[in-house]
Every structure is written in C-alpha cells, then in structure tokens.
C-alpha cells in the first residue's frame, strides 16, 4: 500500500517536471511543425538565467520568497532575447522546408548554443538551491518529500491550464488553432501567420526556459544539462501526439509512472523504460495517443 502511494507520488512529481519541460516542445511543433532539438538548450539557458537572476535578487536583498519571481523573470528574459534571435534571425528562412531538414537546423542551433552558454557562464557550477527550501517538507510514513516538488505539480497544472485556456478561450488562441489546423487556409483568411509563428515560438522558448529555471534549484547548473532533457521530452511529446497539449500531459504521466515503477520495482530497467514506452506507443498509435490521422487526398 505504502509502496503504491510512493510510486504514484514519485511518478506524479516526475511527470509534472516532464510536462513543464516538454509542453513548449509540443506547442512549437503544433504551430510551426518544427521538432525543436534546441529546446534543450533553451532549458539550459533558463537554468543559467535563473542562477544569475536569483543571485542578483539576493544582492538586491529581495525577500527569499521573491526568488520565485526572479526565476519567472529569468524565463521571460530568455524568451525575450532568444526568440527574436532564433525565430526572426534564423528559423524563418527555413519555413516551408522539409520538417526533417528543420530538425537539423535546430540541431545546429543546439550545437551553437552549447558553446555560447559556455562562453557566457563559463564551466563552473551555479547553485540556486535557496528556493528549494521555500515550501518546507511533507512527511508520509517513512518518506519525506520536499514541498517544492509539489509546488512543481501545481506549476504544471497552472502552465497546462494557461496554455489550454490561451488556445481555446482567447481570440489569439483561436487564430493559433486555425494556424495549427492549416497555415495556408489561415493566411488565406487574412491571418498574419508569421506573427503567430513568432508568438508561438516565443512562448515555446519561455516554457522551455521556465522548465530550466524551476529545475535549477534542485540541480547544479553546469555544461551538459541540456542534453539530458532533449530525448526525454521528445519521448513525452511523441507518446502524447505531436502538437497536442493534453497529449503532452498524458505522455508525461505515462512516462513518469513507468519510470517510477521501474525505479522502485526493477531499477535495471530505468535506463530504457522511457524508450520502450515510446516505441510501443508508436507501433500501435503511429501518430501518438492524441493525434487523429489525416486522410489522404484524392
């Protein structure tokens, strides 16, 4: 019984983290049809920016509670700086090209950002662990969990809800949905598709950076943090169905629980539990769980 609860809680907290990290990836694919490998780099930038911002917040004698605000601002800053550079300055020259080609473009971006990050922040580790203690601890039986992990669950719900609401309940969102459905039709209806792309990509970067910023307190921010999250978040959005928000949520839950189960029951399987799930889902639902297959034209 206790074990089951533990597995569920661990699965849920990990899933929440996965969702926050991956939701931006699926949004960007939905709108721009780009599977963005550089997503991991934006995650890393978010982590580094959070480290710097929280550092400054401390020097400015902000109350510790405000470090959360600093982390948010860090994510915003990353999006504000990187979106124009990458989307306007690079990606838009490749729109309409083969989607696999675009994957390679983002792979190049990933390589470049790897070294750029290193040039800006150096190789020494950054620690932002103060916010990690903000929410106290929670004791259940033999277990103790850090409140921050549950804060992440809440954050995941907020992020997911906000994205869903933004897409389905706002005018801009409805326009975006039109673009997701078909950029051609949307533009023929007078939608400024290029603006929607810019906006969606900015939000995608913001969400990636947000993931990095809120992960920073529990890790040591240093070179190499980007690589780890790329394939994992790929798996999540592929399982859920590329471009589907609810899919990303379900995918995150499946992966989170699968991993939690593996770690508690069969640790040796942890290494590839995620990829097994991914391969199996793809074999039975080629387009992922939340994607209807498009009909062929005649």
């Amino acid at each position, binding site marked *: 019984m*206790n*074990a089951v609860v*533990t597995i569920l*809680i*661990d*699965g849920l*907290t*990990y899933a929440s*983290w996965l969702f926050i990290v991956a939701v931006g990836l699926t949004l960007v694919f939905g709108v721009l049809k780009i599977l963005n490998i550089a997503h991991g780099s934006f995650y890393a930038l978010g982590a580094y920016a959070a480290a710097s911002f929280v550092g400054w917040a401390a020097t400015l004698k902000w109350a510790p509670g405000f470090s959360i605000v600093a982390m948010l601002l860090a994510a915003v800053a990353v999006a504000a700086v990187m979106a124009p550079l990458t989307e306007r300055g690079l990606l838009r020259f490749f729109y309409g090209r083969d989607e696999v080609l675009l994957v390679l473009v983002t792979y190049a971006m990933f390589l470049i950002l*790897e*070294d750029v990050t*290193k040039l800006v922040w150096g*190789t*020494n*580790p950054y*620690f932002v*662990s103060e916010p*990690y*203690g903000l929410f106290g*601890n929670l004791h259940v039986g*033999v*277990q*103790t*969990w*850090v409140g921050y*992990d549950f804060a992440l669950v809440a954050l995941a719900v907020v992020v997911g809800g906000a994205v869903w609401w933004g897409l389905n309940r706002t005018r801009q969102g409805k326009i975006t949905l039109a673009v997701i459905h078909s950029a051609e039709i949307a533009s023929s209806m007078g939608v400024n598709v290029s603006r929607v792309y810019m906006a969606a990509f900015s939000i995608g970067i913001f969400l990636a950076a947000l993931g990095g910023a809120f*992960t920073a*307190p*529990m*890790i*040591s921010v*240093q*070179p*190499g*943090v980007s*690589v*780890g*999250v790329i394939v994992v978040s790929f798996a999540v959005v592929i399982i859920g169905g590329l471009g589907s928000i609810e899919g990303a949520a379900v995918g995150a839950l499946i992966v989170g629980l699968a*991993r*939690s189960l593996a*770690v*508690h029951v069969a*640790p*040796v399987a*942890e*290494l590839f539990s995620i990829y097994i799930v991914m391969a199996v889902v793809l074999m039975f639902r080629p387009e992922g769980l939340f994607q209807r297959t498009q009909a062929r034209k005649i």
Partner: protein
Amino acid sequence: MTRNRFWRAVALSLTSGALCAAAHAQETFKLGIVSFLSGQAAESFGVPAVNGAKVVIDAFNKGAAPAPYNKTGFGGMRIEPVYVDENGGATKQVQELRNLYDREKVDAVVGYVGSGDCLAVAPVAEEMKRFLILYDCGTPRIFEDNKLQYVFRTASHAAMDNVALARYLKARNIKIENFNLINQDYAWGQDSKKDFVLSMEKLFPGAKPGEDQLPKFGAGQYGTEISALMAKPADVTHSSLWGGDLQAFVLQAAPRGLFSRTQVVFSAADHVLPGLGEKMPNGVILGARGAYGLMSPKSALNDWWWDLYSKAYNTYPVQAPYRMVQSLLGLKLAVEKAMAANGGKKPTSEQLAAALTGLEWDSPAGRIRMVLGDGHQAIQDTAIGRTRYDAAKKMVVLEDIQRFPAECVNPPPGMKSEDWIKAGFPGAKGCP
C-alpha cells in the same frame, strides 16, 4: 570571422601543416593534452585538469618548479601544449589522437578521463608506436587485459577507491548490517559498485546489500531513486556518483533527510566540496581517488603546487588537477632521464617508454610508483575523510582523515584487482 580563421587554418594545415610542425621540432616538446572542455565532465574533471596543466607547464617553461623538477621545460626543451576536447565519444577520440600524432606531430599525449575513451585510444597509440599517458580514467581493464608498450597510466585505477572506502568503514568500526547502493548505469558506476560490494563481503561478511539503484548518467532528477533508498533503511549508502549528477543528488537528498537516516559514503566526491559548500551535509564519508585536495599530505612540493593553483584560480586544487600534475611531473622526469640516455637529444617514443616503465617519483599527493602492468600502471597512497562545514572558514573541511598506503588498497603485481578482492586482499601491507 570565425569561419575565415577556420578555413585559413584548414588551408594552412592541409598544405604546410606537416612542414611547420617539423621545423621547430628540435627545441620544443609538443605535448597533446586531451580532456573534457565541454559536456557533463567539463566542470568537475576536464577544465580543472586543463587549468592545472596550464599553470604547471607555465612553471616548467620558466624553470620555476622546485627540485628535482627545476630544469626549464622538459630538459631544456620548451613545452608546447596542444589542447583537445575529449567530448564527443570514443570514435572521435581515436580520430583526434591520430591527428595529434600524425598531423600536429606531438611528441607525447597526456589525457583521457572516460574509461571508454581510454580503452579505445590505448591500442591506437600502441599500433602507431607513439607515447601515451592516461592520466585519469578509472577502469582496471586496460592493463589487466592487455600488455602494452607505449601506454602508461600515472594514477591508481578505481579498485583502490572502493577498497579504501570499505576499509575506512572497518577501521572506524562502524556497525553495518545492510547497505544500499546508488551508482550510474555505465561502466564507472557498475565497476565501482562491484568493487565495493566485493570488498564489503570480505570486510563485513554479515552485511547484506539492499536497494541497488542505477540511474542513467546525467539523469539530474533523483526524487524517485531517493524515495526507493528511503523506503529500504540501511546503515550505509554507497555511491560513486560524480560531478553534476552527484551535486544534484546531494541537493535533492539532503532536504529529504537521507543523510541523517543512513551513513552516506561517496567514492570520488572531493571535487564537489568547493562548489556545494554548506549545502554538503556534515559527516559524509568520502574519498578523492587519491590523497588529493583537502586530504593531500604535507610536503614542500604540495605547498608549492597548492599555492600555484590557488593563486591562479582562487580555489584549491581537487582530484582532477592533482592527477594531471602528477602525470606531468612523471613525464618530465621520464623525458629528462631518456634524454640523458640519448646524449641530450630529444628521445624517441621507445626511449620515453623505457624511461617511464617502473619509474617512481614524488607528487603533491605523495609517491607515485609504476609497479603494476609490467611497470605501466601506477599505484599511490590514498585517503578517506569525513565532511564538516566550517562556518569560520566558510568551507567544507575533512576530518577523521585516514591514510592508506598504496600496497594496502592496490593489488600486487600480476593479480587482477577483482580476483585480489575476492581472494581477501592477499599481500595487502601496512593497513591501519
């Protein structure tokens, strides 16, 4: 701009790279240095080691090192280092090593942290008959599985770390009925785990291994693993995590009280102490893969090295730079010995190999002796300590430091480390 420089470099090296390298080959000793300049091992191992190399080579070229290392450069030859990034996988390392020897015309290469990289490059140096020093990687397989002529390792292999850890627990007679394990799911983690478990079987026959966690390398998130460890209480929890993974594990496990529930022992954790500072819990038992950093022995050489590094980078040297400097000191002596034998001329790879085989020298971490693998594999003393955050010094200090002479924690010549542990450490000498 970058591209222009790049293409010029390409053109230059394609056309006349060989020539200009050969031109001033006589008065300089070209030394290839390979370590992680990017990726997950850069912060903890690669960059500190390269930083160490930079200041030491600088000191050598100025002739500023203390005797017997006070000749300028290598026996008068200016040392000209070429740095290469180890990141990118063993395939890339093999190609880059060939390029270093054939294209950059280096006289020797010192490098490699990753066990996979060491295994891959050793036979290449052997085939090319060129001199290679492995300065850091841990796997015992290299010299236990092959006979090599041109390849050396100037530091103990990883078996020492976990044997010493188990012996420390014994020496402090900590009572252990069961112990948990958390190690990365690749060779380093798997080997470290094996060595520790085997050592425990011998030293604590009653102790039973419990939870055996194998997070993947670079996982970053350990919440689930920590729950699993908490769910199965144990007297001791062993881990060979390092670098970013180790720091993340500590940051996530400490607030959950893992460190107060069980005696945590880390096999190679000294390098995270400066960074973690007060975030490192007190009372953690850890090793440094040698008598390094805060556990280094008192000596004039060590003081010189400590100041040299601390002044340059305003942080004290940890295991990686120590391992680099001890290999460079050994190389310096070997080159000068070989030159003497070669009538003062620059020695060949064969002469270098002959000179380093079975050599002994003093390093900041104590005496290094090339006694294993027919004189190609070093053994050295090591030490284990216990953490305490010193608020006055604003840094983590190590207490209850226990030193282990090399023969106590390394197998005797001609015996595989795993067999040696299984056989109950025959011939172990000078153990506390």
